[in-house]
């Protein structure tokens, strides 16, 4: 019996405030409370609240047959508590239905999995504790920041006791193989659920694109595409940002109507159902081991790390923030640790990406900065203050030499 496996990503970073060089040594408050609150409330009203209500309605209407998963970052939970507690409550209500699974990830939506294994373990444990505290469940399937995966990350995650992990079904990794089966990691017992990026992106990116030959996308049409997989797959993994509903695809595009009709259309074929990731792993045995020879993510056409570490600025900023690990830990100060970890959130480095500027692209939509260069400047000014003022360390290299 094949199934549709939905997982939605919920994340909002703590954006930095405008922090000029001349603030170094004088101002140790780094985040833009007003802007973060305003953005969070905007997204809550456009997406989180109406989408949660829609999901709740579907779960009730289909009597437990509509099942979904979320991965909610720790910094998103923190901002819910800070700016929109009703959002946290509505997620708790969803979790209580028994039809919702919560996945594990790093608390700070960081790149620690690539840069600092100890830090990675610590952030994953912190996140698992938060899921337990807020939702009363312990994650069994893991989702790394931006679906970043390679064989080594897989081994570390398996070592932490997770049954399975989400990854991008990248063409060059899969080759002739289909993403619609469960696979097994190369060096461990960890099982892998691979994103069907074509069908996922039809909803997440192409839904409102009038230039797309399939526009407009209707629930019956999409269900037909899903049903066409019958006999050639066991799970269709539809993974996307939760903000797809109402924020990336505005309400006026009809995305909520589409969502409202989709479960019924999928369930019209009696042999199809909806499962959460853990349920898929329970039902389906892995068909084969699969090795990720390179680090894969779900970002851009490149499906690699170049969105976060593609240029000198990004590499330098990442190196400098992770170089502070030993110093920060030695302080044994929870506030300092939390501050340092918020500076690890991947979005800060994403804003510094220069590779897409030539194409005048949609990514700029997400950036609070005028340019990647300003993003770097602001981040470095903050990091410099953190190093000099909070850690009382001298700049470890004098840039002007």
């Amino acid at each position, binding site marked *: 019996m094949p199934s549709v496996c939905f997982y939605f990503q919920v994340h909002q970073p703590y954006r930095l405030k405008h922090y000029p060089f001349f603030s170094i040594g004088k101002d140790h408050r780094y985040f833009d409370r007003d802007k973060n609150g305003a953005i969070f409330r905007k997204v809550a009203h456009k997406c989180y609240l109406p989408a949660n209500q829609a999901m709740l309605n579907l779960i009730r209407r289909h009597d437990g047959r509509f099942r979904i998963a979320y991965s909610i970052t720790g910094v998103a939970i923190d901002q819910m508590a800070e700016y929109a507690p009703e959002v946290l409550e509505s997620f708790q209500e969803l979790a209580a239905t028994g039809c919702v699974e919560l996945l594990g990830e790093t608390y700070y939506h960081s790149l620690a999995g690539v840069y600092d294994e100890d830090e990675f373990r610590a952030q994953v444990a912190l996140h698992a504790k938060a899921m337990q505290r807020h939702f009363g469940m312990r994650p069994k399937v893991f989702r790394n920041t931006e679906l970043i995966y390679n064989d080594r990350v897989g081994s570390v995650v398996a070592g932490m006791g997770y049954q399975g992990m989400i990854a991008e079904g990248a063409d060059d990794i899969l080759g002739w193989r289909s993403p619609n089966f469960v696979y097994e990691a190369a060096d461990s017992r960890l099982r892998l659920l691979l994103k069907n990026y074509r069908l996922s992106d039809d909803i997440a990116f192409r839904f409102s694109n009038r230039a797309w030959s399939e526009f407009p996308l209707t629930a019956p049409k999409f269900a037909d595409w899903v049903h066409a997989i019958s006999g050639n797959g066991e799970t269709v993994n539809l993974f996307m940002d939760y903000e797809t509903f109402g924020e990336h695809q505005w309400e006026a595009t009809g995305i909520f109507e589409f969502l409202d009709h989709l479960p019924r259309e999928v369930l019209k074929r009696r042999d199809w159902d909806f499962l959460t990731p853990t349920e898929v792993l329970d039902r389906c045995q892995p068909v084969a081991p699969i090795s990720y020879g390179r680090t894969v993510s779900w970002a851009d056409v490149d499906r690699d790390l170049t969105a976060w570490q593609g240029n*000198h*600025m990004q590499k330098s900023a990442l190196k400098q923030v992770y170089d502070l690990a030993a110093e920060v830990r030695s302080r044994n100060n929870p506030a300092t640790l939390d501050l340092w970890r918020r500076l690890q959130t991947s979005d800060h480095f994403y804003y510094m990406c220069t590779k897409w500027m030539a194409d005048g692209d949609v990514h700029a939509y997400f950036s609070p900065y005028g340019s990647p*260069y*300003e993003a*770097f*400047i602001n981040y*470095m000014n903050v990091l410099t203050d953190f190093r000099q003022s909070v850690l009382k360390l001298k700049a470890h290299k004098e840039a*002007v030499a």
Partner: protein
Amino acid sequence: MKILMLGWEYPPHISGGLGTACEGLTTALGRLGVGMDFVVPKLFGAENAPHMRLLAPTPAEIAASSPAASSTPAAQVGNRPEAPSGGTPGKSQPAGGTRAILQRLLGTATGAEPEGHARELPREVMERIQKVEVPSFLSPYLKNTPAELSQAIRTRLERALAKGRSPGATEEGKEAVAYGAVLDAFERAGSALPPLVQSLLASSIHESSVSEHYGGDLFSEVGRYAAKVLALVESRGEQGYELIHAHDWMTFPAGVALKALTGLPLIIHVHSLEYDRSGAGADRRIEEIEKAGMSAADTIIAVSYYTRDLIHRRHGVPLERIQVVHNGVYARNTVQSYRDQAKLDSKIVLFLGRVTFQKGPDYFVEAAARVIPHVPQVLFVMAGSGDMLPRMMERVSELGIADKFLFTGFLKGQDVERMFSMADLYVMPSVSEPFGISPLEAIAYHTPVIISKQSGVSEVLSHALKVNFWDVDQLANLIVSVLKYPELGTDLSAMATEEVKRLHWDASAAKTSEIYAKTLEGRRSPAKELNS
């Protein structure tokens, strides 16, 4: 396709933005097979323009190509083609009038006419001169009454008489022939000319006849240029031009007059506005000339959306009449590094350009004062001269940063290249910059740039740091960051170098050529134009 292009300067003698842009654009247009005659006020001899004919008409040249010089005076009388149309009923002798004056001048000069006749200024001249309406705002600089003007022509005539030689052989004679052609053109264009252009032309006739050398104010030069262009076209006759393309306000009177004379469509190209250069202190007379050009033009080309918007706001021109053609940049092959030779310990932050209101040198100085306390090894360099230079020098010493601030004065040639390649950072804090080629030059020397958001170049350059010119704190923040975080400059200059390769003049020429075609098409089917 053949274009009559009206310009004010051409490299290498003048390497300002306008001349450089004209060189880039015409070179690329030449590659597209567009033929051009490019008229400038003066040539210096070192210009290199194999792609077109570069002309700077002198009275002698005009006289040489004028029918009046090669034919007998008598043959010319009454032999002139009629004015195309539109002559006002009040003008009784539209065609032969000025020619007749010339004839008389020529005739007296060779002694064919009695002296008494020559001393009487011909009535037609008086009539025409008196018809010139001088708008009140122009009168402060147009000091001469029609009576004084007629006196000037009389003086010229007397000089020719005194020399007692053929007018074709003396300078005065040549000038007389040339300006006879102007008067002729002037008459044929008739009342179609805006009063402003009429008065400029009238003043030029006066100016040239009384002074034998170049000089006087810019307005006289502009008028003289317009007169010369008219004379050139009038004397050379049909050259197969399809369009007139005039660059900046100095050539607009000529363009407007030529359009009235020939009926050819006029494209005016705005490289900068008076408002850019002077802000609130803009010269109203220049703005009036800009406005006259814009209302007469079939199409307006602006070098940026920034300028397009400014034209719209300053002159009330509807946005849909203004097309944007961004400037390009030349690809440079090799860049020598002067920095290695210089062995400098300090990082160099460079301002290079005219030290005038428009370029925002004061913001550069104020930012320097904020940066210097935080960066021990830095040298700010202001390269260029201009009316604000003394004040800037004063301010630098007032701020106590003179030991970290260097004024080089005006640089040219190799010194410019050396300066660009030695700099660690180039700053263009312009208050209002229609385009701004200099940051692209800096990038060609692998120097990262900070540019003001009030510039056209910021529309085409994404790999630059951008700042509102008035935001000195942010400018200082950006400067310090480039100096403190070396990765920033590395990524900026690497990405910008790639980006600048795509800003080629060929793209600008292609767009210009499309605009030519559309302008001609609009001319052929005006009804369609209105409907579209």
